[in-house]
């Protein structure tokens, strides 16, 4: 089963595409088609207007637009497809959010003549925000650009560049003509240059099952069944896999127990329950469990708290979201009072710019808020779990659903997962050796020699080289003081993990600012890990004379700026564990000096 949401601006041909998809895959029945033909004829149109298949309301037909989300069903031999047909016209964001909330895949339509427009970017952003990990960009009206491969490639590249800023796991592009049916159900003869599959084929084949969270076991109790003298708990599995015999804990009270039996609807025994199964569970102990409680594994619990950070989309034109307002918040099977504490920022969905001065959210606007709830919620971040990370706000005055919310990772209350293995359980003790100095000072050569000798001696070690890390972990960071600080912070975190795992992390990084290095040292010390700072003190003229990568020459020529030692300062360590100077000998000799330091008790 595939759930998809459509998006696209007005007149990009969305309703026509859906109509075409249904028509060409024979999902349209003769009487429906006859009705469309009759209406089209009455309106003086030559061809049956396939958009009429989906525009079902009187007002939609009168105005030729789509007003509200409609759901369509397409059954192919390979898949059942549920289409949330969301209008691109009025109140686009609200409807798109609604459709995308349950979608595995979003289908975004663009007009080949117009290319990527604001609306396309907005829809892609919303899909990404709502956790829709598969996107298909349909470049429509290819017939009106002479089936141009170049035009298609141009649009594809522009969209790809934009999508890099978003969290989209899977991106596909299909050039189509919804009006004529090219590449919708059948491959088109008009675009022989296109090597991909038809849209329908893609929808049938795309793999979406892995998008569910099968790791964190979560069962929000929905309904308590009392029968045959005992209580059972019914609910829809929101994450992970639950089995009879599993040790569990019931939150928020924290009662420990064990799953005795699990049944599917009607009492069919279940060996393994996973999302989105609706099950009934019996525990070993008779506990006081109620709707709104949550069953999970003892060592894998959701966050429990009353302060919630979330992205919200405001859904109503009748009011705005402002700090101080109170609503009913519905989350899994809980319903609690909530107050808006703070609007952190409003996001411009076209530019992705954050407006931190914003004071309210109105219809279709998206922003980050902090809420305080009257009773604790049992939640995960939306990114981790759509079921336990989502909520709606209901206005008590009108009973309307006014906002859709996605919980972000709680910053202040990140839970540090305890480990079953202590540091003393490991075979080796780890530490970090941090070599700092100018470019071409010889840090990496010493580090390499040190790593080699440690490994030879049977001591697990790994070299973290600044240049190498900038290809992977730190790709995307520049050389501004801020980026350099972040670079050092990340390398420091990785080194600390290695050290904690029992390795000697050998870091060679210019790390020119003392404050950044001191932060890493402080983090290590707080974690009880040794941090040895080694200053490779090679004078700048010696470094410049070596200049193996030609960097000094380029800096002197003005080709690069902000180069440490030339036009950017280097702050030497105040109290290094060791200083290595050129007169200390070759890299091997230097490595031995460091080794001696390591072996000191």
């Amino acid at each position, binding site marked *: 089963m595939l759930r998809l949401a459509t998006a696209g601006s007005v007149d990009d041909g969305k309703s026509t595409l859906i109509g075409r998809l249904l028509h060409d895959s024979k999902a349209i029945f003769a009487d429906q088609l006859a009705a469309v033909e009759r209406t089209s004829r009455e309106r003086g149109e030559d061809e049956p207007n396939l958009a009429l298949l989906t525009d079902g309301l009187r007002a939609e037909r009168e105005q030729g637009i789509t007003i509200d989300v409609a759901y369509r069903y397409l059954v192919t031999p390979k898949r059942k497809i549920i289409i949330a047909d969301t209008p691109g016209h009025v109140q686009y964001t609200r*409807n798109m959010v609604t459709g995308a909330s349950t979608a595995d895949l979003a289908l975004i339509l663009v007009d080949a003549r117009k290319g990527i427009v604001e609306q396309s970017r907005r829809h892609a952003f919303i899909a990404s925000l709502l956790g829709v990990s598969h996107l298909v960009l349909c470049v429509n009206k290819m017939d009106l650009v002479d089936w141009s491969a170049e035009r298609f490639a141009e649009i594809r590249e522009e969209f790809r560049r934009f999508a890099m800023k978003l969290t989209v796991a899977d991106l596909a592009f299909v050039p189509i003509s919804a009006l004529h049916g090219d590449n919708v159900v059948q491959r088109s003869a008009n675009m022989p240059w296109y090597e991909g599959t038809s849209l329908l084929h893609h929808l049938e084949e795309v793999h979406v099952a892995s998008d569910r969270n099968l790791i964190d076991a979560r069962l929000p109790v929905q309904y308590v069944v009392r029968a045959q003298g005992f209580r059972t708990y019914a609910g829809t599995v929101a994450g992970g896999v639950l089995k009879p015999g599993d040790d569990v804990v019931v939150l928020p009270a924290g009662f420990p127990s064990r799953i005795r039996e699990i049944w599917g609807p009607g009492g069919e025994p279940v060996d393994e329950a996973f999302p989105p199964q609706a099950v009934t569970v019996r525990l070993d102990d008779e506990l006081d469990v109620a709707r709104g409680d949550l069953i999970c594994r003892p060592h894998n619990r959701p966050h429990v708290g009353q302060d919630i950070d979330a992205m919200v989309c405001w859904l109503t034109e009748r009011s705005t979201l402002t700090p101080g307002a109170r609503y*009913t918040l519905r989350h899994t099977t809980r319903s609690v009072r909530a107050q808006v504490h703070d609007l952190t920022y409003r996001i411009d969905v076209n530019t992705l710019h954050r407006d931190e001065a914003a004071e309210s959210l109105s219809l279709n606007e998206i922003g980050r808020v902090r809420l305080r709830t009257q009773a604790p919620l049992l939640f995960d971040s939306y990114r981790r779990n759509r079921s336990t990370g989502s909520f709606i706000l209901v206005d008590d005055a009108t009973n309307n659903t006014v906002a859709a919310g996605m919980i972000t990772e709680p910053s202040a209350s990140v839970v540090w997962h305890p480990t079953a293995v202590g540091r003393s359980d490991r075979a080796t003790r780890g530490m970090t050796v941090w070599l700092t100095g100018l470019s071409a000072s010889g840090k990496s050569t010493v580090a390499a020699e040190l790593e080699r000798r440690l490994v030879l001696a049977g001591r697990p070690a790994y070299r973290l080289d600044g240049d190498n890390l900038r290809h992977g972990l730190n790709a995307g960071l520049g050389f501004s003081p801020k980026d350099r600080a972040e670079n050092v912070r990340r390398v420091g975190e990785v080194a600390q993990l290695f050290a904690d795992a029992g390795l000697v992390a050998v870091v060679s990084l210019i790390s020119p600012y003392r404050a950044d290095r001191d932060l890493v040292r402080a983090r290590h010390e707080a974690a009880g890990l040794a941090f040895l700072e080694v200053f490779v003190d090679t004078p700048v003229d010696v470094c410049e004379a070596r200049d193996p990568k030609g960097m000094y020459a380029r800096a002197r020529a003005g080709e690069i700026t902000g180069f440490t030692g030339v036009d950017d300062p280097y702050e030497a360590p105040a109290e290094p564990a060791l200083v290595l100077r050129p007169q200390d000998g070759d890299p091997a000799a230097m490595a031995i000096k460091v080794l001696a330091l390591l072996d000191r008790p």
Partner: protein
Amino acid sequence: MKGGSAMATTYELSPLRALEAESVHVLREVAATFERPALLFSGGKDSVVLLHLAAKAFWPAPVPFPVLHVDTGHNFDEVLAFRDRAVARFGVRLVVAAVQDDIDAGRAVEETGPRASRNRLQSITLLRGIAENGFDAAFGGARRDEEKARAKERVFSFRDEYGQWDPRNQRPELWNLYNGAHRKGEHIRVFPLSNWTELDIWRYIAAEHIELPLLYYAHRRRVVHRDGMLLAHTRFVTLLEGDEPFEASVRFRTVGDATCTGCVESTATTAESVITEVAASRTTERGATRADDRISEAGMEDRKKEGYF
């Protein structure tokens, strides 16, 4: 190694089981959050599936709400007998709201003429039944694939104090977080089968061995051609000039008021053979057999606005 390798666990539900899970979730949600829900039961296949799902959702306890039958007085005898059997088997309380009572009391005026139908009057009786019993939620078996106005329907459909549906002012429905908030006098129509298609219903009937009124399977009966449909020749149908009743092997795709529910020629006598027939059919069930949908382009939309389910 022949047959010895362990099946890789994919943790995937079949489409039918995914639909079942979704419907069960909705049924439980309503039972947990409303005070007086009721299930609209006509004896038609969708409401039979709905009752079956309700029994599964609350197992091992009985269904925790009554069923409401809006009785037009023009029922097929087989369906009434089936209704009573089903109610007894599931151990649920039956509440009947009769159209005849509204006609007798002058609240509803019966159509006249040979094509007269009580279908439109059902809305009046339904709303009275809901109000008199103080129901705050009413489950219906409607599916979004049935009709274009129904494709726009929410799972939780808010109805104002007049029972009206306002398609331009529906509550956004996100994730599986349904908003059933309402004031006294208002109510929510709940459609747990929203995402099912006719074929899904039949596949489920076959998979679960669900008993249906025998009208749904091919049988011989006297019929008459009317408006491009086959109408069963019952005591409720007045013959028009030129009408020549004849006997044929037919079955019903929907079961409603006998005056406007047509049948189709068929030889399908089991759920499996019906599935084959439905899968190959080129007309919708309503297009084939419901006269009431042919009134206008927006016939269903208009009736839903009046309070129809």
